């Protein structure tokens, strides 16, 4: 039996959720932003807005120029995460092996399950019907079905919005001949240009190219490209319950104008360190390498350096002190920064670490456990580091729009 991969992609996801929750936004071109100000960027557009040649990541001012009647809507990340959790619960009833690719995209291995639901198309139709029953008519999903992930994604992209597509093997030669390499998932502009320079424009060209040449040009990825050119994709589905161990844990924050002063940015950094520590404790890891950096200006260079702790840690304060050490190493000390970030790598599972020897370290560990307990019970804002309260605007901006992958937890 050949593999059956289902790719499900929510249509204009954030915008659809907003339109579902607020009927007054339906039928209007809307742009979802972190904060509805001209300095912000659009994270999602509604279907109506997409007609105006706008794209995700476009600055608000540019989007308003392209689409003057664009309605700006402040995004609700928790709302999207919760809707995602709800649709994943539905999908779990159909397939066991689900890979959460992003907040609005999943891959499912339906090789075993499709026949139980009357075949892949019937299963996809049933999923779409369940979605309509659960979320209403505005939040829709497009489903692509193929033998591999790449082709399932391609088929879904060609059947948007609210469509179902299945790759017919008889049509495969035509698809290989007509599909440009740039249309394929994972082939970005630069790889596409390099392939074009080598005379490879379509998937058929890719399949006819020498595997040795592709391997020489792109390494192991070249062999994957060649495989795609043959109309085959063996990329495995990594189910949510087999997620590989994290290599690092980090947070970064684009700063609003009122927090760009370097000293205030450090206060934000303190909060980010606290979040990193909290996430590491939740995931059960401690780390030794602390990387910290900032960006000057909206398109300016990123300045960052790293340091290694004497002992692995998951404590926000220790991470922050390491960040301060790192910041002192960076020769530039600007008055204003637009982004700050911290990440901790070189991770070791907490349960493989010996217990702390010094009473001071044990006390801090108990303190963190107590704080985690309070936050688990009363929410993340129940206990905060005192210094982060000094700058009043922080509470409403911290949290931002970034979703950590461990935000979506499935039982």
């Amino acid at each position, binding site marked *: 039996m050949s593999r059956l991969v289902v790719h499900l992609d929510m249509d204009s996801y954030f915008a659809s959720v907003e339109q579902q929750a607020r*009927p007054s*936004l339906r039928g209007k071109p809307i742009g979802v932003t972190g904060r509805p100000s001209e300095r912000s960027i659009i994270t999602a557009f509604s279907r109506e807005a997409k007609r105006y040649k706008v794209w995700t990541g476009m600055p608000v001012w540019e989007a308003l120029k392209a689409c003057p009647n664009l309605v700006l809507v402040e995004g609700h990340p928790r709302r999207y995460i919760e809707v995602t959790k709800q649709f994943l619960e539905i999908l779990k009833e159909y397939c066991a092996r689900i890979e959460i690719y992003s907040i609005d995209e999943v891959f499912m291995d339906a090789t075993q399950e499709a026949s139980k639901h009357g075949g892949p198309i019937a299963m996809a139709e049933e999923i779409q019907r369940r979605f309509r029953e659960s979320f209403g008519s505005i939040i829709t999903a497009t489903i692509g079905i193929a033998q591999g992930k790449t082709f399932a994604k391609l088929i879904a992209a060609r059947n948007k919005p609210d469509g179902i597509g299945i790759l017919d093997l008889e049509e495969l030669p035509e698809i290989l001949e007509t599909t440009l390499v740039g249309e394929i998932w994972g082939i970005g502009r630069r790889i596409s240009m390099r392939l074009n320079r080598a005379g490879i424009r379509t998937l058929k060209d890719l399949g006819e190219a020498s595997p040795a040449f592709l391997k020489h040009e792109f390494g192991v990825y070249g062999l994957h490209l060649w495989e795609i050119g043959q109309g085959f994709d063996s990329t495995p589905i990594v189910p949510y319950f087999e997620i590989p161990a994290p290599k690092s844990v980090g947070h970064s924050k684009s700063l609003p104008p009122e927090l760009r002063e370097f000293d205030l940015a450090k206060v934000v950094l303190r909060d980010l360190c606290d979040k990193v520590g909290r996430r590491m404790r939740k995931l059960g890891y401690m780390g030794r390498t602390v990387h910290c950096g900032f960006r000057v200006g909206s398109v300016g260079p990123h300045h960052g350096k790293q340091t290694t702790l004497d002992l692995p840690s998951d404590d926000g304060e220790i991470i922050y002190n390491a960040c301060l050490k790192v910041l002192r190493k960076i020769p530039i000390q600007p008055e204003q920064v637009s982004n700050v970030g911290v990440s901790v790598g070189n991770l070791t599972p907490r349960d493989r670490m010996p217990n702390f020897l010094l009473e001071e370290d044990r006390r801090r560990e108990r303190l963190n456990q107590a704080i985690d307990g309070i936050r688990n019970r*009363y929410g993340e804002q129940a206990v905060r580091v005192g210094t982060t309260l000094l700058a009043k605007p922080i509470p409403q901006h911290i949290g931002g729009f970034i979703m950590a992958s461990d935000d979506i937890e499935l039982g």
Partner: protein
Amino acid sequence: MMQHFVNEPVDALAIYRRGAPHPLLCTFRWKDQRYDVKETHLVHRKNTGETIHRIYSVDCDQRTCVLRLDADRAQWTLESMELLS
């Protein structure tokens, strides 16, 4: 299309159906006025620590209302109201 933020507790009548993921909100009373729910647009969960809130976006009498249900305390709060033009 202006949203008015209210954040006030309200009396509500809801049906707890067997097997349903969340109670069905039928009507609520705010400032001595009764609002009958004509359609439920979206219900999603929002956790604050252990407290589970359910956020309802509903249509009633040409208004879109957002209500929050604190499932532990069985308390309903009207979060915002938007008049549909």
